[in-house]
């Protein structure tokens, strides 16, 4: 497939499945024509305003969807898996402006679309697609939060980011954490912060030989910072 070759990414294999970590922070599984994105946090600015916080620029949802649409245009994915925390809370999903809801429905047209439940969006949402607690698709399993021992597990939740010191310059990017058992994906949403890869909870989940793949114009792999 010619369009897939143009996609900028880092190739790796886990549990026998050949995957590509894309520079955008999405994960591509060519064999299944499946695109995974995690932690979209759609409606985050709306939720903050609703709770009496600052009125942030209300363009986060459209920015996130713009990037997702670009990844879909390149990949022509037959299946999309949103790995949980797709909405900043369940009310955000209901409060989605009509044009943005229509946009999501257009993106869903002609393909299978799975919303995995996350801690921010633990119930079904009324925006098309299928709702699942987790999705097993041998040899992989898609769920929001990584579980203890696992094999071929793709999860999100932690928003990992990694820094490397390149000739004195600290460069920090959202990052995939990858080892032989699992992938922890970076957050895809525009208004999302990151959790440093050095954090003990991530260190405990990942094997010693894990790598971090930093997102950015060209994804780069480094040993996972500890």
């Amino acid at each position, binding site marked *: 497939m010619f369009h897939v070759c143009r996609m900028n990414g880092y190739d*790796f294999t886990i549990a026998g499945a050949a995957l590509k970590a894309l520079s955008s922070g999405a994960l591509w599984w060519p064999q299944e024509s499946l695109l995974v994105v995690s932690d979209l946090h759609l409606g985050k600015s709306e939720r903050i*305003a609703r709770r009496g916080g*600052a009125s942030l620029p209300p363009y986060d949802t459209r920015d996130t969807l713009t990037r997702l649409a670009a990844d879909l245009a390149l990949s022509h994915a037959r299946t999309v898996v949103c790995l949980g925390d797709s909405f900043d809370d369940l009310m955000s999903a209901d409060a989605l402006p009509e044009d943005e809801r229509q946009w999501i429905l257009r993106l869903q047209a002609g393909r299978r679309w799975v919303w995995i439940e996350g801690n921010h969006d633990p119930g079904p949402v009324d925006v098309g697609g299928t709702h699942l607690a987790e999705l097993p698709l041998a040899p992989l399993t898609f769920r929001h939060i990584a579980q203890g021992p696992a094999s071929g597990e793709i999860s999100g939740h932690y928003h990992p980011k990694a820094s490397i010191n390149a000739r004195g310059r600290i460069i920090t990017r959202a990052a995939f954490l990858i080892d032989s058992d699992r992938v922890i994906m970076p957050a895809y949403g525009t208004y999302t912060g990151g959790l440093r890869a050095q954090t003990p909870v991530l260190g405990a989940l990942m094997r010693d030989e894990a790598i971090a793949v930093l997102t950015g114009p060209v994804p780069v792999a*480094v040993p996972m910072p500890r």
Partner: protein
Amino acid sequence: MADLPDTFRTWFAAKGWSIHPHQQAMLERADAPALLLIAPTGGGKTLSGFLPTLIDLADGDHEGMHTLYISPLKALAADIKRNLTTPVAEMGLPVRIEERTGDTTATRRKRQRADPPHIFLTTPESLALLVSYDDAPRMFKGLKRVVIDEIHALAESKRGDQMMLALARLQTICPDLKRVGLSATVEDPTAIAHLMARHPDPCEILQADPGPAPDISMLRTDEAPPWSGGGAAYAIPAVLEQVKQHKTTLIFHNTRAQAEIFFHNLWLANDDALPIGIHHGSLDRQQRERVEGAMVRGELRAIVCTGSLDLGIDWGDVDLVIQIGAPKNVKRLVQRIGRANHRYNAPSKALLVPANRFEVVECVAALEAVLDGELDGDPRGPGPRDVLCQHILITACAGPFEETVLYSEIKTCGAYSTLSRAAFDACLDFCATGGYALRAYDRWQRLIKRPDGLWQLRDPRAAQRIRMNIGTIQDTDTLKVRMKRNRGGKPLGEIEEGFAATLTPGDTFLIGGQIVKYEGLREMTVEVSRDAAKKPRIATFMGTKFATSTQLSARVQRMFTQDAWPELPDHTAKWLALQREVSQLPQPGRLLIESFPHDRRAQTVVYGFAGRNGQQTLGLLLTKRMEALGLHPLGFVATDYATLIWGLDPVTDPETLLDPHALQDGLETWLAGNAVMKRTFRASATIAGLIERNTPSARKSGRQATFSSDILYDTLTKYDPEHLMLDITREEALRGLVDFGRIEEMLERTRGRIDHLTLPRVTPLSAPLFLEMGRVPVKGEAEERLLAEEAARLMQSSGLAQITPADASKPRWRVGF
């Protein structure tokens, strides 16, 4: 009220004092609506401000708060309380004096609101917080006078703008409120008078006798200052000798990091074990208080300090002030020296200690300026709108308000007297709805207009969040530093988050004068242990960096044209001569540019003499041009005289780089994307309430930290480029950090007369630039190249490269075995 009552006359006589002429004049004008006193420290300035208050309160029939005292420093409020308590106690006056700062306990604060003292001492931030409460009218009922101490310091910053807005509120609550400002010597008293008066009321200015001229000189040492660096370690023996010869010495530094290093070195050389302390704003409060206490008791022979000790605190018998590092600004130098000396009519004694040879030139230029009585300074523009936005939110916290009334009230502030209704409306709309082109928050507006036309908070819980974020001081994100113990060890102070991120366990750094070893990060606290063995790294602190004034820059530039420098120490004259020999000295009317390799990077230095902000902008413009020309710039740093740019490829054609039309054409477009704009945006958006530094739940866990303000900035520029916040950012950047005017002036003055020298190594004159803080990274292609190189190196050295696929189409890394 012009005559001193008997009680006071007796007290003065018992002390053997007579009333100063300016104290008498202040007393006579006690009923003036606004009064500004310009007086040197030590001249009983504080008492001048409070004398009418004490006399008025002497009969004991005043109910509630009488006088509000505002100072820029918490420590100053505490100090003034001590100084006032003495006469009040000795004369047996029925006066209750209390302070309230960020450090005051919650119980005490509550009581102060219910039962306010006669004299209330506070800071601009605490005042802004107090006017945000709905009971403010009750608390400030009966208030007659407000005394603003060190107003010249506040007048230069947004803290002063916020304070004046809060005062406008108070003036509405107490229409007869009289304003008194106390200021050190400044070049333009009318500007301060304009800021502090209730516009358009007049403000009378009283000039006290300035006292004798300071006895100020440069410390000359046998050993020459180094070529570069800010530590002034070479001067330690000479400084120690001075400390021994004087009773109490204050040793000022321009930055906290420099203070730390100097203190460390001082202790290593302090063979007589003289009691010497350290004091700066990043140290833990208890540590600071301990040093302050010891100082007041006269137990210390010297204090190594920064601007945190800069304001008129009474430190007792200070008989020598030493300034380490070039003073940057003549007015500030004179004020710093004058304030530290609290003996009226005795000349202040001060020594300048240049940290390196470049600073020798600056110090000599500054001394000449002091002798010529040439103070410097630039006028500030109209009141900043980010502060205005915060004030609107604060007003809403206090209760429903009518927009036209608020607008009129704000216009009584000098800084906002020219504010247009449209500009005000835009700020109000921003506070209410976010002010976005996409009207997304109709349901969740922060402020709503009620049917009766008054504005109020939609969600009353928002008041708590707004109050948590009151203030205009931009502190970078810092982390607390503690000794590692089981149950939380001794707090030492704080360091910048960015610096903490570069630490790996085992690294050492200096804090509070001791070397500590980084153990790890626990929650949001840096844990350290004592470590005496190693040479420390240096913690970076975000200190205020003053730009060298136009006037002082010009003096330095003129000195460079001399054939010889008899007024300079021999070593510095030789250094300039050496620069002339290996390269050249920047000539007036010409632009010197040096290019040379250093530290595996191609370096270029542009000696523009356009001031720090101008040089900073020049750095941004030039790196942008270099990025376009494929020279892979990595970053730059600017001083008042020069900009140093480093990158992967050398500059060969500076004429093209500096083409004025290209620079100017580029200004508007690239302003949008650069780091200074993002930094300015972060500051302004935080003040205006778009970014909340503190939220009820934040920073407890440190997990999924808030996303960076850069994301908001990028989102706004992309989807809403006309938004108010971007407009404010542009305005703030242009007046603060951009200063394009001085670049144009420099290009005009040197048009076509560029001296470009390609040299084999760092030149004498450029060496100090390599130690400058505040390096600005350029996030261009070079970063991608570096990242790829470093990633490859890491993968190679870790061995992971062998098991990772090189060719994307043929994965060779099979995991699980």
